[in-house]
Every structure is written in structure tokens, then in C-alpha cells.
């Protein structure tokens, strides 16, 4: 990047935005790359996701035909744990700047606040998509190795896990997107509340409280509703490959619910960022 280049290109209105955004993107990428624990957190996400998925796959047995288990969902159980680390990563991407006062430096360098947030979101999404893909593929591979030993065999009606299978591919791609949406939800929330502690508590509360509440609600209709609006339960519906009709919400519709939550959080965050003094 040549800093002089931007000055010259800034003459044309469209070009100016484009170049500035590219520069901001580059800056945000450098920040995330040099933040110190980004790499460690991403590695932790992958490790936890694969380990929990592997453990679950090892624990669940399928003794005979029609045991009703969903092997793909089992292998991807680790996402429920990995998402917590992704949420931390996303929250810290903005809260750390508020915590250290660096946000002022950032906004001095790039006065358009939405550009900053958009660049952060883009960089974060890219990073999470990459590590999420690694985590999901490794989980599926582990499942493919472990599950047949637990009775998930052709004799019991289970083919080995493969991405060539449509629903499996959907579950895999959906899980990666799920992680990216969790990152955006966390980023939006953290932008809105600024403080890391409050942001983390809000995001984890939002994710984990719905499923717990669902267990208590004694009315099937309400239960159904809760599952449909819960960011985690609805979002993870994309992992389902069997008994699709019995699920409270369809795979892509479920991911759509999470996307709506993420969009709302980002919108709130950007509105507040725009309106607020730093």
C-alpha cells in the first residue's frame, strides 16, 4: 500500500471510498493479526470444537437400526463450545480498543465510523470462516473415523460421513456460517455496549439462556416458539440431516433467525457508534 496513492485517488468520490475502505481493511487486518491472542483463540476454537465433537461421537452408540441419531450433528457438537471462543475473539476485537483508548486513534485515522465497523466485520468474518472451515472439516473427519466403531454403520443405515452427501454438506457449510454469524453478533453487541465484560455476558446469555429456558417451559407451543427464536437452537438447526420435519425450524430458516439476531446487533452497534462520542 502506498499512502501517496490514496491521496491522489481520493479525488474521485467513488474511488476514494473504495481505496479508503481497502486501507481500513488492511489496517484492521494488521490490528487483528498483531493483537497477540488472535492466533491462540482461533487455534483454541478449532481444538475445542474438534475435541468436543470427537468426544461426543465417541460417547454416543447406535446399537441397532433406527436409533434415530444424527451422526453429522453429533460430529459437529463441538460448535456449541467453539462458539464461545469465537464470541470472545469478536468481542475483544472492539472492546479492547475501548479498554485501552485506542478507539480514539482508530477513529482519528479513519473518521468514518461505519467504515471502521464494516472493515472490522469483514476481517473478522474472513478469519472466522477460515478457522471455522478447518474446525468443521476436522470434526467431520474425526466423526468419520470414530462413528462407524459405535454402530453408525451401513448395516444400521448410516453411510460414512462425506461432503458429497447434500445434507452433510449443508450441515458443514451451515456450521461455518453459524460461527461467522456468532462472530458478527458478538461484534455488534460489543460495539453497542463497549465494555468486554458486559458484551461477553450478554452474548453468552443470549446464546445459552434460550435452550435452558426451553427445558423448563411446560407448554409445547411455547417451547416450539422459543426454539424458533433462540439464536443458538435455531441457528444450529442447520446441522440437522435426519428427521428434518420434526425440527422446530428448517435448516436455512434457522440460520436466517441467527442472521437476523446478528444483523440487529450490528445495526444497533453501528447506530450507537455513529451517534456516540467516543
Amino acid at each position, binding site marked *: 500500500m502506498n499512502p501517496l496513492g490514496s491521496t491522489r485517488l481520493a479525488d474521485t468520490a467513488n474511488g476514494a471510498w473504495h481505496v479508503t475502505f481497502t486501507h481500513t481493511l488492511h489496517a484492521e487486518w494488521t490490528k487483528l493479526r498483531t493483537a497477540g491472542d488472535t492466533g491462540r483463540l482461533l487455534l483454541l476454537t478449532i481444538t475445542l470444537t474438534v475435541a468436543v465433537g470427537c468426544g461426543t461421537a465417541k460417547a454416543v452408540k447406535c446399537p441397532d437400526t433406527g436409533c434415530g441419531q444424527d451422526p453429522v450433528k453429533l460430529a459437529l457438537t463441538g460448535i456449541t463450545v467453539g462458539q464461545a471462543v469465537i464470541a470472545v475473539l469478536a468481542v475483544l476485537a472492539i472492546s479492547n480498543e475501548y479498554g485501552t483508548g485506542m478507539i480514539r486513534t482508530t477513529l482519528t485515522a479513519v473518521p468514518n465510523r461505519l467504515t471502521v465497523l464494516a472493515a472490522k466485520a469483514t476481517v473478522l468474518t474472513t478469519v472466522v470462516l477460515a478457522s471455522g472451515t478447518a474446525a468443521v472439516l476436522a470434526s467431520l473427519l474425526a466423526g468419520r473415523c470414530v462413528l462407524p466403531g459405535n454402530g453408525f454403520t451401513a448395516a444400521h443405515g448410516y453411510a460414512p460421513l462425506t461432503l458429497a452427501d447434500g445434507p452433510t454438506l449443508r450441515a458443514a457449510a451451515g456450521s461455518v456460517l453459524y460461527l461467522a454469524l456468532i462472530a458478527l453478533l458478538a461484534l455488534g453487541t460489543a460495539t453497542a455496549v463497549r465494555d468486554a465484560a458486559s458484551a461477553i455476558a450478554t452474548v453468552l446469555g443470549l446464546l*445459552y439462556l434460550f435452550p435452558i429456558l426451553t427445558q423448563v417451559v411446560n407448554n409445547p407451543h411455547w417451547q416450539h416458539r422459543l426454539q424458533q427464536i433462540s439464536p443458538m437452537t435455531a441457528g444450529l438447526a442447520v446441522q440437522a440431516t435426519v428427521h428434518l420435519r420434526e425440527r422446530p425450524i428448517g435448516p436455512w430458516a434457522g440460520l436466517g433467525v441467527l442472521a437476523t439476531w446478528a444483523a440487529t446487533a450490528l445495526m444497533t452497534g453501528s447506530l450507537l457508534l455513529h451517534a456516540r462520542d467516543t
Partner: protein
Amino acid sequence: MTTAPTSRPPATRPAERDGFPRTLHAEWTKFRTVRGWVLATAGALLVTIVVGLLGTAAPAPGGRGAHSAAYPKGPGGEAVNDSFYFVHRTLTGDGTLTVALQSLTGTADTDTGTDTDTGTGTGTGRTARSAQPWAKAGIIVKEGLTQGSPYAAVMATGGHGVRMQYNYTHDTAGPLSKAAPEYPRQLRLVRSGDSLTGYTSTDGSHWTKAGHAKLPGLARTVQAGLFATSPEAKQNTATGTGFSPAVATGTFGRPALTGNWSQSAWRGTQVSGDAGTSGSYTNTTKGDFTPTSGGGYTVTGAGDIAPVVGGPVMGAGFTVENFLVGTFAGLIVLAAVSTVFITGEYRHGLLRTTMTATPLRGRVLGAKALVAGGIASVTGLIAAAITLALGEHSTRGRGFRILPVTSATEARVMAGTGLLCAAAAVLALAVGTLLRRSGTAITLVIASIVLPFLLATSGVLPPGVSQWLLRVTPAAGFAVQQTLPQYAQVLSVYEPSTGYYPLAPWAGLAVLGGYAAIAFGLAVVRLRRRDV
């Protein structure tokens, strides 16, 4: 300067010993003077109550039992199922009933595609002909026909031999309690004042005592006779546990009576009118009794005479712990506040000021833990007390039943909720000290407390793994909120997914407390060694 520095008391004055209260006072002042923390604590209280009330705010599903206001209560105050077919006459004073039980058979709808989510099926599938393990037929002496009244009974069961049971919770195995008793089997129940003794015999001449019951204050005039009943059939499939309707049929010989019995004929009554929450008649069978050619009777019944337990057999009702579901929300907030209580000092460099004022670092952390834990426990306790009072009132109004608990149990749940919050707060404080970063610390604490619970209760994992999770992770602490009883003589799903923790209440809390204590110890060691 207002005081001459030389007049300062020397450093070794006896009053110097009260160092810890001073540090505690300072930390308390620190906490209460940050408005955000005070508001967050109030928020934790509020969110515990609101989430708890929202979680139990759904209207009654209108299913079985929705119209009855409360579970029948046994003499011990516990919720009971008291549903059986009773062939009875009135007995005044002492007396004996002897009868031969020629067979105990059962009918159950199986393979009805039921699972734990929907409770019971419609009974459209195959029918199996064998008595359920806890199907019962025998002799019962009961104070009256109302549910929950005191009783004692000697009986044969489908799978657990001859038993003597009384007052719902008491169950004694009789002699030769083999899984498959030989028939005919002689049963005898002797009433003498408030003392009842059951006997069994295989030949009618050699009697063995099956058990003894003392029913203090038993009325002089009681209902006594023959009964049969069967809880629902429990089926374990790979997808889960299902329950389906089942009935039991006992074929009795001619009853032999001594004592002052009413002269009227034997009358048949379905006690409770239906089969209760744990029993259900099949589509084709109703409770009934018919005389046999040899002067005996065939009695068919469904239901159970037993305490209500959790799981699908509980029916539509709430337990005390259901109202406390908001504890999770409150805990998240309290953990966040407790973490920031220390990480905020790191972030602002304030810890150096704190350590300058109180160089004993263990003392500072101890005072902080006491303040954070104390505030959390009071918050948890108050929230639990308010939620229980409000929740029980509002759900009763909407036709839900609430599993009754003794006031000691309720006190344990409330105090336990407070201590649960305190332990989580201390854990959060310690992890915050170790990691020094609020974001990662809070995530670690919340994830370690809430995630294992979520994984264990979601039903994804097999029960063994779920129970293991709730034994060794900080989520074990929620056991302190469990009020659901477990009885060997009642079949249900005693698993985390139905609210059963593998550890006893205080043992579970001790696991979380252990985590908090270890983390606190490590934090003190680290804080002492580290430059701040």
C-alpha cells in the same frame, strides 16, 4: 497538616491486629461506590426473577391433570399418586384378611412411538401380556377412599416379588422376593390397632412375615380389601425412554376374613377416578372386578400407589427448581461483575494503589472474595425467595400443579442458590485474577458452569456421559436446587435430562465450591508472586 506526625500511634499498637476488617471495609466501599456494579447486581436479582417467572409463565397445556389444582399429598406431605382399583368392605377395629393370589398378569400398549418429549402415547400399537415390574396386586388397608390417606398393603409385584408397602414412600421387600414368584401365593394382612403386619406363604400353612407398618392415628373404621394397579410401561429405545399405558390384573381366590367386617357385598372403586400421573388405562381396558367361579375375584386396575417423581411420569406440573431457571441468567451477570471487580483494577492500574494501601495480597483477595461472594449469595438468596413466592402463586392460579416440598427442602434450595451464586462469584474473581483479562475470564467461567449443564441436559449425550459431566464440572453445583425425589419402587427416567443430578445437593455444591477454592488458592499464589 492537622495532626502532628509524631503523635501518630506506633506501628505495633494492638489495634493493628484488626487488619482484615479494614481491608474488607475498603473493598466493600470500592464495590458500592461504582454505580455500574451496584446496578448490575440489582439487574442480576431482577433477571433471576423475571427469567424464572417467564420460564414458568406458559399456560397449562390442557393435558392430563391440568384441571386438578394440586397433587394429592401423602401423610408425610409429599406428592403422591394414589390410583388403583379397590375392591373393598369396611373393617372396624382389628381384623385379618387372607387371600390367595392366583396370578398377576398385565396388558401394555407397546411400540406406540412415544418418547420422553410427548409423555404418553395413544396406545394404538401392539399389546403385550405381562405384568409391569411394579404392577401390584394384593391386600390393602386404607383409612378412606380419598387420595393420600394412610394405608398399608401387602402385595405381589410384576417383577420385584412380594412387598410390604405403606404410606406411599415405604417399601419393604418380602421373603423370597424373586423376580418371578410362584403362583398361587398366599397373602395375609393383620390389623391390630395402628399396627399392620403382612405375611406371605406358598402353601397356606407356613407363613412368613413380609413386613410391618405402624400407622399412628389410623382410624378405627377403615376400608380394606383387594387391589390391583399398574404404572405405565417403560420402554427403553435407542432414541430415548417411552411410557405407554398398562394395566394389571390380579386373580384372587376366596378372601378369608376375621374381625368386624361390614355385611355388605364387596364394592369396587377406582380410587382417584383416573390412573394418576404415572398410570394410564389402555384403550381397551377399564378398571373393574369380576367374581370368579371359586368365590374369588379378578381385579383389573391401572395407576400407582407411590410418591410422585420427576420425569415423564410427573405429568403437567412444576418443581421448585423450575422457578429458579433464572439463576443461570443471574449467575452470568454476577460472574461478570465479580470478574470485573478484579480485572477492572488491572485495567486501570488501580491494583497498584490497592497493593500499596494493603501490601498483604492474600488479604486483599480474601476481602474481595468475601465481598463478591457475600453480595452474590445475598442476591441469589433474595432472588430465590422472591421467585419461589411469586412463581408458586402465579402458576397455581393457572392450573399447574407444584410438587410440594418440605420447608426444610425449600430453605435448602434458597440457601443453596445463594451459595451457588457465591461460589460462582468467587470462581469468577479467582479466574479474573489469574487471567487478568475480563473477556477471557468471564467466558471461561460462564462456559464452564453453563455449558456442561446445557450439554448434559440437552439429551444429545448418553445418560452416563451426562451424569459424569454433572459430577466433575462446576455445573455440578446446580444439584443443590434439585427437589425431585427418587424412589427405587417408582420407575421413571432419573437422568440429567429430567432434572436428576448424579450428586446429592450439598455434594454437588461442594464440587463447585471446590473449583472456586482451588482457583482462589491459585490466584492467591499467583498474585503473591507476580509484580503488579
